[in-house]
């Protein structure tokens, strides 16, 4: 990363404790514009918690998080204003079941960004068409497959052109044959220049799409580098052990 431009996201020595139990222990991380950074690590390593702190869904116990130049952990910052600039996609899609697909995508545009109904729905329909679900705009989420629902959730997250997109294990709840369509969409987002921080268990995908891979263990960044460095030549024994286990579970 170049030091001349401000990164989109800068996490600086972030700590998060649940009671006495530390989940994040001094995490520092930067994500530059148009960069795709992938967090890998076992369940409970702190990936999801880190993503939640960045969207201010979890308050940090120490450290700072900068979105551009703004310290979003400053208590004077309005969390909703920060969240309006960050898109999040969850593991279980979390689409609103009482709204049509189009209404899901257009909701924040209308209620948070103040667009009128026609503008918001035009934008929503354009997005849905782009992800190949234009004909599903009037359907309700429960009529869609898991992969389609997750693609709608991604459309909902990117509808307002967020500066940063957080993807939290977005393929973990999907049937294996549906994972591909969601990952293809993420790859397209990367091509179109989105800045993405994602947690995933899909090592093959991390290898192909990530600009940088970050390995977390017990709330600490053990190793970070290009996919080649991490997957071909991991330096830390913990990284090697983790990769051996996920790449060859029966070995």
């Amino acid at each position, binding site marked *: 990363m170049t030091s001349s431009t401000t990164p989109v996201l800068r996490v600086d*020595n972030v*700590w998060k*404790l*649940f009671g006495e139990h*530390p989940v994040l*222990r*001094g995490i520092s991380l930067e994500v530059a514009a148009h960069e795709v950074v992938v967090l890998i690590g076992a369940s409970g390593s702190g990936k999801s918690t880190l993503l939640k702190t960045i969207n*201010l*869904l*979890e*308050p940090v*116990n*120490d*450290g*700072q998080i900068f979105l551009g130049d703004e310290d979003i*952990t*400053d*208590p*004077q910052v309005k969390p909703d204003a920060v969240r309006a600039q960050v898109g999040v996609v969850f593991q279980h899609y979390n689409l609103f079941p009482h709204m049509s697909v189009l209404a899901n995508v257009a909701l924040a545009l209308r209620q948070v960004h103040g667009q009128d109904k026609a503008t918001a729905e035009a934008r929503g329909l354009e997005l849905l068409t782009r992800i190949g679900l234009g004909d599903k705009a009037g359907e309700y989420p429960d009529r869609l497959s898991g992969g389609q629902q997750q693609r709608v959730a991604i459309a909902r997250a990117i509808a307002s052109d967020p500066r940063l997109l957080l993807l939290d294990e977005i393929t973990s709840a999907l049937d294996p044959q549906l994972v591909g369509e969601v990952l293809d969409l993420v790859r397209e987002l990367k091509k179109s220049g989105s800045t993405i921080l994602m947690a995933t268990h899909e090592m093959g995908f991390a290898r192909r799409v990530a600009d940088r891979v970050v390995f977390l263990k*017990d709330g*600490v960044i053990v190793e970070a580098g290009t996919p080649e460095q991490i997957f071909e030549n991991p330096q830390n024994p913990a990284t090697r052990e983790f990769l051996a286990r996920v790449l060859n579970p029966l070995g």
Partner: protein
Amino acid sequence: MPGAPAFSPSGVELDRRRYRRTQGKRSVLISVASTVIFAVVVLGVLFSSSGWPQVQESFFDWNTMVSSVGPILVGLWLNIQVLVVAAIGVAIFGSLLAIARTLRGPIFTPIRLLAAGYTDIFRGVPVLLVLYLVGFGLPGLNLFDRMPAQFWGTIALILCYSAYVAEVLRAGIEAVHPSQRLAARALGLSHAKTLRLVVMPQAVRKVTPALMNDFVSMQKDVGLISVLGAVDAIRAAQIQVAQEYNFSPYVVAGILFVLLSLPMIRLTDWYTARAQKREQIGGAV
């Protein structure tokens, strides 16, 4: 973790905590100030109204209040006894009704219909009417020995409140996910055991706040048995009012009823807050 740094807050974090503390103090000050101003305005308007001296004399006469407390407390003891018996009766009868409404299978159709019709009717009829019909109608049949008014009052309350409680319980039973029933039946548990050991405990937990709310509501409705002539708190107050030509005993009875319900109301709030907290673990929003 070996070799991992222990947590000690940095300067940034300490600054943030200091800021939050001052914000916290500020909001406490603001809430105290706004409460005081609000109270002063309301009481000011009340006490400066032209009719206040007369109202004070007939509703808040200290001597009458003090002298009426004793008889009203004796009456309140009757209310509490009625309440306890009625609550137990409602728990039993309400559960039976709820289970009857969830019975499956064509053979149970008459029971299901009866239970459904019962809850429909008794949720629609005003409690006062049921009290009159049960309290003055049933003894008229001469089927029973002479019973005191509070006996019929308790029966009427049980009949009314069971209908409400049954509906709440039924909602709880139906809110237990079908997979739970499936898992219990897969283990070989009978329908009855599935209901008793797996479904009901989860159902009751889901609707506990609503049930507690019904209990609070019943706590004050036990005062209605006075219309049958039972000498409860309200009837005792009424007697005092007639003797003194002063309404203050009613105010005393009202205050006592509120005091009676306060513990349960607080308990309901506490339980609801705890349940909500448990569901929201790991979420700040």
